[in-house]
């Protein structure tokens, strides 16, 4: 897959709630294949305080209309600027970047665990797994119900469960407190996860205990996104690897995590 830098047209910027947006972007030409787990690096603006591009996982792809969508959670100045983008504006995007999740055989039962906005990295995957006729269970954890968005979309591609730390939606507690992980983990052949580091480590530890295949999508700060700045490294069994090109998806057995 060839990476390109393109000016994409904003066709819509859907506001889900105060902090969450979905940016829909149209490519001028036919989109090439984008694999689940790959990401895009967005040029936010030219302000001195948002000097570098911002990497986002590609939330979903529509090959018929040549659009991609990006899930934005407003955190700082960069994401605030992106949330303000209006239809018809133009955005420079480098994509598709990085490796992708490995796809299981059809009929395998798989678990997707998302934490907070990390669940965005799993949308494209859940669509592909759905088409691949996998039995998909999605567990989405967040601080509070306002952080759980797009639940209808996810439930289209698998059985959806939720946890919230304040108990405002689903099971109260962390994802690892949910019965799917506590009691039913043996029934899955694979686990895919993306979210805050402590959550991914906790999930990876459970997977390791049961010897279940587990892939994580990592997010480290990066300057380029295509393997030249060497800033986004993570420690692996084979030394430092770039999250942008060797990842963002890693098998947890490759990572030097203290789990």
């Amino acid at each position, binding site marked *: 897959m060839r990476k390109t830098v393109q000016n994409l047209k904003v066709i819509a910027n859907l506001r889900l709630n105060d902090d969450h947006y979905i940016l829909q972007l149209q490519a001028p030409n036919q989109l090439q294949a984008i694999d689940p787990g790959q990401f895009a690096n967005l040029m936010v603006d030219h302000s001195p305080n948002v000097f570098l*591009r911002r990497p986002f996982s590609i939330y979903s792809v529509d090959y018929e209309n040549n659009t991609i969508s990006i899930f934005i959670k407003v955190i700082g100045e960069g994401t605030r600027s992106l949330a303000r983008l209006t239809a018809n504006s133009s955005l420079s995007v480098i994509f598709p970047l990085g490796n992708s999740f490995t796809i299981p055989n059809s009929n395998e039962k798989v678990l997707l665990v998302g934490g907070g906005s990390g669940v965005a990295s799993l949308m494209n995957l859940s669509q592909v797994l759905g088409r691949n006729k996998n039995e998909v269970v999605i567990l989405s954890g967040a601080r509070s119900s306002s952080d759980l968005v797009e639940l209808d979309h996810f439930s289209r591609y698998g059985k959806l469960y939720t946890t919230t730390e304040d108990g405002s939606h689903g099971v109260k507690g962390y994802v690892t407190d949910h019965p799917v992980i506590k009691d039913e983990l043996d029934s899955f052949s694979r686990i895919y996860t993306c979210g805050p580091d402590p959550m991914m480590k906790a999930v990876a530890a459970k997977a390791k205990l049961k010897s279940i295949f587990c892939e994580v999508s990592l997010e480290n700060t990066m300057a*380029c996104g295509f393997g*030249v700045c060497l*800033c986004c490294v993570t420690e692996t069994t084979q030394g430092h690897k770039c999250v942008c090109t060797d990842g963002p998806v890693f098998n947890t057995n490759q990572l030097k995590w203290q789990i």
Partner: protein
Amino acid sequence: MADLRTKIHNVDYKNPVLTASGTFGYGVEFDDFFDVSLLGGIIVKGTTIHPRQGNAYPRMAETAAGMLNTVGLQNKGAKYFKSDIYPNLLKYDTNILVNVSGSTVAEYVECAEIINELDHIAGIELNISCPNVKEGGMAFGTSCPSAAAVVRAVRNSYKKPIMVKLSPNVTDITEIAIAVESAGADSVSLINTLLGMAINAETRKPVLSTVTGGLSGPAVKPIALRMVWQVARAVRIPVIGMGGIMNATDAIEFFLAGATAIQVGTANFIDPMASIKIIDGIDEYLNRHKINSISEIIGCLQM
């Protein structure tokens, strides 16, 4: 089309735009974006005699109009470069220089000797200015005797041109430039990054794993421009300018200050096409000003 050709120590460059070490990988990372052979030259990632894992994460902090990095010369070593990377560079029709670094003078020499065996490498850029390694690097580039000693030692064993990359973290950069010129440098490139620091006020911790790191980007351009201007007046060898060059106008400013060629660095991260746009923009500038050749503006600052 204006004449963009330039010459640095008897080596012809098709244009004066090179890509800076550590910001362009080995060139191959840009194959998807454009024909790398269009560049005047590529300076590949800092190479040391022994493989280096580099520094711990976090290695980068975004700052106002720039960024700090502390990569720490992560590379797989000169032998790996020769066996596994160099063959992939033979396809490029442009000047390729290898940025060479070390912890001791002997390491610089050993590394340069391996690069010396490679026909398709036009020269080395001697890195005596990396701010992110515990031993060597910038330590050599901040005193005249040690800077001269490295250059002299490498000069004895390396046959092709030596460009010496200077550190801005000194009291008077012209003294270092004069010292390396006297020791046999064929050209100098400047500036490497400025030593800086970032703190996260919320956590009260430094952002970078090594606390300090090298600042680059538009934030450093005025300093780089001043230093290029000073050094160009102090030495007879060519000066290659860099530091926050984001577009052709920035590049023209460096030529006017006395740079024979320029290097594009941090801009490559933000726009992979930056160096190509800069080449086109220089041509446009020369045409607009009815100047036939880039050589006619080098050092032509009107006072």
